[in-house]
C-alpha cells in the first residue's frame, strides 16, 4: 500500500541531526523517522537508535547449533560405519575436533549473514523511501504522512534543520 511521505535532503549530518531533533520536538516518534545516507555516521544521535546485539546473539546460537550438528555428524558416521585403524578408538575426538571447529564456525558465519539479510530486510524489491541523490552524498530524513499528521509542522521541522530540498512522494509502507 502506497503511503505519502515528506522528506528533506541535507548536505551535512549535523543538519540532518537538527532536523531529527526538530521532528521529535514536533511530536514525531523516533521510530517513525527514516534517515538514509550513503555512509554510516556513527558520531550522531540519529545513527545510534538501531544499535542492537541481536546479530551477535544469533551468531552465537548459530555456532552452537553448528557445534551440535558437527558432533552428531562425526560421531554418528563413525558409529554407523566403524573403521578400525590399528586399534584406535572408533570415535576419535582429537581429529574430530578439526571438523567440529570448522562446522561450528561455518554455521556461525552463515547464521550471521542470514540474520543480517532478514533484519536489514534484504533483498527488497519494495518501493521504500529513497532518493537517488543519496548516492551523491545527501542525507535523507523523512516521515510517512499518516492520517492526522500536520504536513506544515513536518515541513517546518525539516526546514529547521537546513534542508537543501523538501519533497513529497508516495512509498510503500
Amino acid at each position, binding site marked *: 500500500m502506497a503511503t505519502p511521505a515528506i522528506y528533506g535532503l541535507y548536505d551535512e549530518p*549535523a543538519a540532518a*541531526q*537538527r532536523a531529527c*531533533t526538530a521532528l521529535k520536538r514536533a511530536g514525531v516518534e523516533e521510530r517513525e523517522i527514516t*534517515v*538514509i*545516507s*550513503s*555512509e*554510516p555516521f556513527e*558520531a*550522531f*544521535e*540519529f*545513527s*545510534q*537508535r*538501531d*544499535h*542492537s*546485539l541481536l*546479530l551477535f546473539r544469533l*551468531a552465537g546460537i548459530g555456532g552452537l547449533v553448528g557445534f551440535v550438528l558437527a558432533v552428531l555428524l562425526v560421531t554418528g*558416521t563413525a558409529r*554407523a*560405519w566403524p*573403521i578400525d*585403524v590399528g586399534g*584406535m578408538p572408533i570415535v*576419535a575426538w582429537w*581429529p*574430530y575436533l*578439526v*571438523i567440529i*571447529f*570448522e*562446522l561450528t*564456525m*561455518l554455521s*556461525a*558465519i552463515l547464521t*550471521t*549473514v542470514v*540474520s*543480517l*539479510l532478514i*533484519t*536489514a*530486510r*534484504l*533483498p*527488497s*524489491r519494495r518501493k*521504500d*523511501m*529513497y532518493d*537517488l541523490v*543519496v*548516492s551523491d*552524498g545527501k542525507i535523507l530524513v523523512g516521515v510517512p504522512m499518516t492520517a492526522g499528521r500536520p504536513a506544515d509542522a513536518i515541513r517546518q521541522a525539516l526546514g529547521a534543520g537546513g534542508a537543501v530540498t523538501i519533497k513529497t512522494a508516495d512509498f510503500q509502507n
Partner: protein
Amino acid sequence: MSGPSSQPATGVPATMTEDLLRPLLKTSWSFYLLVAVLGSIVLLGVGAFAYQVNTGIGVWGLNWPVFWAFDITNFVFWIGISHAGTLISAILRLVNAGWRRPVTRCAEVITAFALMIGAMFPIVHLGRPWLFFWLMPYPTERQIWPNFRSPLVWDFFAISTYLTGSLLFLYLPTIPDFALVRDKTTGWRHKVYGVLALGWRGTTKQWHRLESAMQIMAIAIIPVAVSVHTIVSFDFSMAIVPMWHSTIFGPYFVAGAIFSGIAALIIAMAALRKFLHLEAYLHPVHFENLGKLLLMMSLLWGYFVFAERLTTWYGNESAEMSVFWATQRGAFAPLYWTMVVCNFVLPLSILSFRKFRTVLGCVIASCGVVVGMWLERFLIIVPTLSHKYLSYSWGSYRPRTPEILLLISTFGAMGLLYTLFSKFVPIISIWELKVGEQPELTQPHETPDVAATLWRTHP
C-alpha cells in the same frame, strides 16, 4: 586523474566517487589487451590440462617415489597466498586501523581467487579428475563412509569454510557500493547492480546490521584462516616422513602463508595503483605500512626456518639428515639458498631502511618473497619424498612442460580474475573511504553547533 588541487585537507580527492567508478564505466583498449594476454596464458594451462586428461597423468614428471610435486606445491602456495586478504583485512578491521580502508577490498579479492585456484589443484592432480566428487565426504552407494580422521577430509572442510566465509566477507561490504553503482548507471548495468545491491538503501538500521555482521565475520574468519593453513600443514606433518612429522609445521605454514599473502597484496596494489591511476588513494604510506608487516613476517619466517633446521641438525637422525643435506649442499641446494635470499636477505636488505620502503622497494621485495615462498613449498615436498627412510627408495624429480605451463597459467588466472573483478566492482570500498574522511568530531576544532548534536554529549 584528479590533480592535487582537487584534494581536500583530509587527503582524498573530492572526485573520489567518479575516480573509483571510472574503471567500471569506461573501458580502454589497454583493458582488452591485458585480458587477451592473461587469457592466452590461462589457455596455455587449459591446453596443458586437456593434454594431461587425454594422455594420462604420466605426462608429468611424477614417478616413484615422488608422487607429489608441482601440483601440490601450487596447492599449498595458492592457499598460502589466500591469507593475504581476509585474514589481514579482518585483523585490520578489528584493530580499527584507519589506513586499512583503501586496502581491504584489494586484499579480500586475492583470498577469494587464490582459494579457488589453490583448491583446484587436488582435482587437477587426480588421475581421473572427472571423478573429483569422490573426494567429497558423503556416504556413497558403495558404503564408503567419510573418514573424518583423514587430514585430506579436514582440508575439504577447512577450505570450504574459508572460501564460503571469504566470499561473504568480500560481498557484504560491497553491497553499499553496488547500490551506489546502481544509482549512477542506466540500462543493463543498472539492472545487474540493482540485483547485486539487494535493494540496499542505507538506513541507519541497515548500516548497523552490516557493521555488526562485518565485526562478527572478522572475529570468526581469523581463527578459520589460521586453521586452514594449519590443516594444510597437517597433510604433511601427520605423516611419519622425514622432516614432515614436526609440531612446528602448523605455525610455520601459517606464518609463511601470511608472509606470501602480504607480498601478493603489495604487488596487486602496486598494479592497481599504476594501471587504474589510483595514486590518490593508494598512498606510499600504505606500501610503507605493508612493507613493515612484510619485514616482520620475513624475520618470523627466518626464525621458524632456523628453529626447524637447528632442531633437525641437533637431532642428527639419519633419515632426516639425508633430506637436510640434500637441501643444504646437495641437488636442491641452489633452490634452497635462492629461497633464503628471496625470503630473508632481500626483504631485510630493502625493507629495513626507511628510504627503500618506497612503492618500488616494496614491490621488488614482494616479488622476491613470492618466488621464495613458492620455492619453500616445493622444497618442503620434493626433497623429502625423494629421500625417505631407506636409500633404495630414493629417487628424483624433474618437472615436465605440462606442469610448468600449469604453474604459469595459475599466475595468468590470478591476473585475469583480478582484472575482471576490478572492471566490474569498485576495487576500493567507496563508503569505507568516505567514513575515513569524516572529521573527528571530538577534536577541539569542531563547531559548537555540531558538538551539541553529538549523542555522546547527551547524558
